[in-house]
């Protein structure tokens, strides 16, 4: 009985832990995985802007304040970042859905998928904002 009690109190053995992020050479696919999570977290808080926009649109007095924010330089900077995060997270999510089917894991496939994700998100964001500035004016 004394033996089994000492077994219970035994401290866990010091086993080697698996290496964590800092031990690996940064790779595109790894950075894209991290960015997927960061953009997701950014979009999470960005929904406050969506809620504000809808609430403002529903009130005759509040909309001017939202428009003032959205056309200020800081507002535009945040909305530009929000646009990129949205497009990037969506394209990255499509990549995840492709992986869910068991495809796209090959060495060359995963590299070009990651590159296409990044290039695509930047291109679409710039294109969308070209359109925004064309409509709204730069100033």
């Amino acid at each position: 009985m004394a033996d089994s009690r000492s077994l219970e109190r035994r401290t866990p053995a010091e086993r080697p832990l698996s290496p964590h992020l800092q031990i690996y050479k940064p790779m595109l696919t790894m950075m894209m995985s991290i960015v997927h999570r960061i953009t997701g977290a950014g979009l999470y808080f960005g929904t406050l802007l969506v809620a504000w926009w809808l609430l403002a649109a529903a009130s005759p007095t509040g909309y001017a304040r939202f428009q003032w924010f959205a056309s200020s330089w800081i507002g535009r900077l945040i909305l530009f970042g929000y646009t990129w995060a949205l497009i990037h997270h969506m394209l990255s999510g499509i990549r995840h859905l492709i992986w869910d089917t068991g495809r796209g894991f090959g060495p060359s496939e995963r590299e070009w998928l990651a590159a296409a994700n990044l290039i695509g998100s930047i291109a679409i964001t710039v294109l969308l904002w070209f359109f925004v500035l064309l409509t709204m004016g730069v100033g």
Partner: protein
Amino acid sequence: MSGPAHIRTPLARVRGFGSAKSGTQHFWHQRLTAVANIPLTIAAVIILITLLGRNQAATAQILASPAVAIIMLLFIISIVTHMKIGMQVIIEDYVHDESGKLTLLMANTFFCWVVGAISVYALLKLSFGL
């Protein structure tokens, strides 16, 4: 089966109880809303672009039209569900302190419901003019 309780492995303790039946629900809902988010986000971005530069009255009129209102409602419900599951995974990955984790999981649920409620309220107000 038998033996002193303290030397039984975690596996031995649960063996025979059957599965929890709901283990893949979050995984599945995250994919379901991810797929729904693609067309809904594209539609929401198109709606937003058509509203650029319009005043409140014109914006409210377009957001109140049935197709636009229904798309925006679905968009809000789908993204809020998706982001709640996503943030829960982030919290469970990085917060190991039990009380801190429970607090943040609660805060996550509250945040998502509040953002969802504000948006849905605004869309219903636009549609029905309450």
